[in-house]
């Protein structure tokens, strides 16, 4: 951690420290709405980072990450719902279950040489399969959904994630910061370099003696575990879960927007992407509501157009360009 901090130049240090201080102090001045938008930004930065580790660093395209969000959310919510086991314990169950699912998907994919398009389809199929399965799991509420009680008397139990906007704001901020630190560590670790090698040229990586299967497997496991934590956050933040929503393919697409827009395979890409997309989406909603043309689909159309524009004009994302523009190299000269 300290080595990481020392490894970057002064200017980046200053920008990072200022940004962090501003975000920590934000609840002093921001109202509830602004905090909720920021919370959403951090959430997308976090799950985007999880996806980015797998796609951006290890080059494995998953279009079914909603699977891990959903499993994490349901695991922790069910433990709370039936046994009153709080999310601080439930998160371990969530992580193990999502990792088990990730292991199955990864093993099926990598052991049997399912690559590229086919792997992406495998991940979609796994997510959709689970969605329909959860539609028929009666103990999890089926398609009617699972609801966590919002009890006034438990609102102070922050350790059980029962609280107001402020609690979730700081939790999301911590998650986003943690994910950046983790990604930065991983990117500089031996494993991270293995991932990059596999992404760039699998055959060459294998020829260098890298265990490609293990590298890809570890990418899926790390990514699914991280995403599951995002799922736990989702469950306790929104207090309701529907299979048709949480496992839906549009959820999987939603969480990869931020890293793609920000810059695939970059440490700050997901954060930058989330900071661009979420406020624009919110502004668009506010604008259409004001103009009286507030109909479902507007925000998604805008996201779709953004996606097309970014991938057409700036496929490496916004962050590499932005970093150059403000003179942050990320490394000591």
């Amino acid at each position: 951690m300290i080595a990481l901090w020392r490894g970057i130049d002064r200017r980046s240090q200053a920008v990072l420290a200022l940004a962090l201080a501003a975000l920590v102090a934000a609840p002093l001045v921001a109202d509830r709405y602004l905090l909720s938008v920021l919370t959403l930004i951090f959430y997308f930065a976090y799950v985007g980072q999880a996806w980015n580790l797998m796609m951006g660093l290890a080059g494995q395209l998953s279009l079914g990450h909603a699977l891990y969000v959903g499993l994490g959310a349901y695991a922790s919510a069910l433990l709370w719902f039936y046994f009153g086991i709080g999310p601080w314990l439930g998160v371990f169950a969530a992580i193990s279950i999502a990792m088990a699912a990730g292991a199955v998907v990864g093993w099926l994919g990598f052991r049997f040489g399912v690559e590229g398009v086919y792997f992406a389809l495998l991940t979609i199929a796994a997510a959709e399969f689970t969605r329909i399965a959860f539609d028929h799991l009666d103990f999890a509420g089926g398609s009617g959904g699972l609801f966590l009680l919002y009890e006034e008397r438990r609102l102070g139990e922050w350790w059980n994630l029962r609280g107001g906007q402020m609690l979730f704001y700081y939790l999301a901020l911590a998650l986003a910061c943690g994910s950046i630190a983790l990604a930065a560590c991983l990117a500089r670790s031996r494993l991270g370099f293995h991932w990059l090698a596999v992404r760039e040229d699998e055959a060459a990586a294998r020829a260098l003696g890298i265990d490609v299967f293990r590298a890809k497997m570890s990418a899926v496991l790390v990514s699914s575990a991280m995403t599951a934590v995002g799922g736990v956050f989702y469950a306790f933040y929104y207090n309701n879960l529907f299979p048709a929503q949480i496992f839906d393919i549009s959820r999987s697409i939603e969480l990869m927007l931020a890293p793609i827009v920000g810059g695939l395979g970059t440490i700050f890409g997901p954060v930058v992407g989330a900071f661009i997309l979420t406020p624009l989406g919110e502004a668009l909603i506010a604008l259409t509501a004001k103009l009286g043309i507030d109909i479902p689909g507007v925000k998604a159309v805008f996201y779709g157009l953004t996606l097309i524009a970014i991938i057409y004009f700036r496929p490496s994302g916004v962050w590499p360009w932005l970093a150059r523009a403000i003179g942050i190299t990320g490394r000591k000269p």
Partner: protein
Amino acid sequence: MRRLARSAVEGQTGQVRRTAMMWSIYLNVVVQGVLTGLVYGLMALGLSVIFGVVRVVNFAHGEFAVVAMYAAFLLFKTLELDPLVTMLPIAAAFFVLGFALQATVINAFIGRPEHDQFILLVGIGIVIVNGLLMIFGPDAQPANLSYGFDSFPIGTLMIDKVRVYSALAAVAIATALFGFFRYTETGTAIRACADNLTGAAVVGLDVKRLYAITFGIGLACVGTAGALMVMIADAAPALAPAFTLLSFIIVIVGGLGSMTGALIGGVLIGVSEALAGFMIEPSMKSMFSFALLIAVLVLRPRGLLGRRA
């Protein structure tokens, strides 16, 4: 004693009659599944043609199918034109759309990393499906054809007219397409691009134009299939991702790039969905398709009839 014997005999014939009835119900379900599957097959054929030649995976495939559904739906509601008639102008319009899309946007992505292409088409898909949502709203809209509930009685079978017509139309279009690829010069040139891209470029084929034509043909297939689909299903934006996945399942089961494979895969999926929907809960039927997709991806990635991976 005698009474007992008689009742035993009656019980037996009753059993036989009941078994015969069960069989005819199953046969009915299978036949309906085959007919629906042929329309699915035509839709998947579009995806297969595009992937086989252009090597781009059309992640917006089902979205285009639903656009065609709404086009046929509107033409039927406003001008009372039968989808069997309007499928041809819709196919033509979709050909132009596909040609333009490939010529302007997608050609720029040939040779770019695979995931760039995915993301582009995923983006196009999002815009289409949510555009439809904005215009038509989320509710399913039935076309209500005048012969929508008629059926052909064949022996004990009752086969929906709409399914027969749409399946016949799908087969006719698919046959025309086979003919095009087999016997025309353009069709041969497109096959040359698919078989050996460098070779095709060396002998002077205009690869980009052929790609645009191929994408146009692929969209014309999905446009026709969408128009026919109006006859057997209600139009709704939510169908789009389901259709995309369905086409993928069919094409992968049949083998990506194989044209006969797409039709046979369509029939297989049509029948298995119909049977699953009949024997267990209808809402669980696509679980089988996804399980089948995973099994085929893992065990036989070239598909049942595919030539190469």
